[in-house]
């Protein structure tokens, strides 16, 4: 991120912030959607996070750390969105046309569905660690720094999250195996 833009936005330059928002909007929204698994909630969280970034930007200590700091505000916005009145309606909205097709490593639609169910059972705390580490390829130390939690807590959350996801995949796979054996 261009630190000059950050510094100018910190001093109240709305044009500089607009450039920052354009540059950061997509990556923030991508992360929000992966944490919240809901397009509407992710849009709301991203919008709120960007506004919070503008509002709190003067308090950013080191402009070079804008990216990590912005992820922290985004995760907070995700917490806030997730804790609002829960929406029980199914998320049946059509995905945008630029949606990538299933990646090569994904074995089946069933796997994706199982993974999605398992992921939704995780708390936002656990999801955030998983997304920052496995989607953004952020090292665990970076995750700890971004979320403002101890490294040990990051490891613990990641361990339990992965265990939960593995359990979801294995549990959903078992009935299929039994049926196949009969």
């Amino acid at each position, binding site marked *: 991120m261009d630190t000059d833009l950050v510094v100018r936005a910190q001093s109240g330059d709305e044009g500089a912030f607009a450039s920052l928002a354009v540059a950061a909007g997509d990556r923030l929204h991508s992360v929000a959607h992966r944490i919240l698994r809901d397009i509407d909630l992710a849009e709301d969280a991203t919008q709120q996070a960007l506004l*919070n970034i503008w509002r709190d930007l003067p308090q950013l200590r080191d402009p070079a750390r804008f990216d990590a700091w912005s992820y922290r505000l985004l995760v907070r916005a995700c917490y806030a969105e997730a804790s609002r009145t829960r929406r029980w309606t199914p998320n049946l909205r059509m995905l945008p046309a630029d949606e990538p097709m299933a990646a090569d490593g994904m074995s089946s639609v069933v796997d994706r569905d199982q993974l999605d169910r398992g992921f939704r059972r995780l708390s936002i705390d656990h999801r955030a660690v998983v997304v920052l580490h496995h989607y953004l390829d952020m090292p665990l130390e970076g995750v700890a720094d971004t979320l403002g939690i101890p490294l040990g807590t990051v490891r613990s959350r990641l361990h339990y999250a992965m265990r939960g996801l593995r359990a979801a995949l294995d549990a959903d796979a078992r009935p299929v195996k039994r049926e196949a054996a009969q």
Partner: protein
Amino acid sequence: MSTDRDITSVLRSWLEEGVTVLPDRVLDAVLDQVPTTPQRRAWWPAWRFLNMNTYARLAVAAAAVVLAAVVGIGLYGNSVGRQPVPTTLPTASPPPESNPLTGTWETGMTTCAEQNAAVEAAGFTARQMTVSDWTCNDMRQFTIRFGLQGGQSDIHSLRAYGNGQLDWDGSYRIIDDATFEAGDLGDGLYYITYRYAIDGDQLTIDMIEDRSPREGQASRLGEQMVQTAIYETSTFTRQP
């Protein structure tokens, strides 16, 4: 049983799916709100201290003391008890409306331990402190000024300073002889309620509610902790 490598591989592929583009309407909504969303200046310049070595901190602290002395002499040397300088000409203004709080009050120098103790005593948990990025600030003297804003008799200004630096600029109104409310300057919204007691030249303040309109729990918590630290770390002494 799935192996760790299987899970990681499947998970990473799955995470690659999903939206990657923020819709223009969301970005437009943000940029539309920016002009009417004030930026929050840092209440606590703690980072400046955190990034300095001990000698630098001492130098800054010494400079702050000298500056405070110079400003104090300038403000009060020839005019004891003068109100904060109004920003408009006072020619047609009504006389100041006085109340027991009117004036300048100051704590002694407070330490990080004392500020943290006040925040903890107010019931904030360690997790809340972490979430809100609470940062104490060692060797900080708090000053609050209850005055009038811009010469208008119906708007009372409340300013809080830390080591002479303006931390909070708002307005207040007296509710009764033990309660006042405060809010951001000039918007007519008083969202913080305080209890107060005056004993001679000593003022004790207890923040009892902060209905901050700020978005986000962390921001609200952070503000509440700062308010708590300013008002509840120590009693205030009336200044001449």
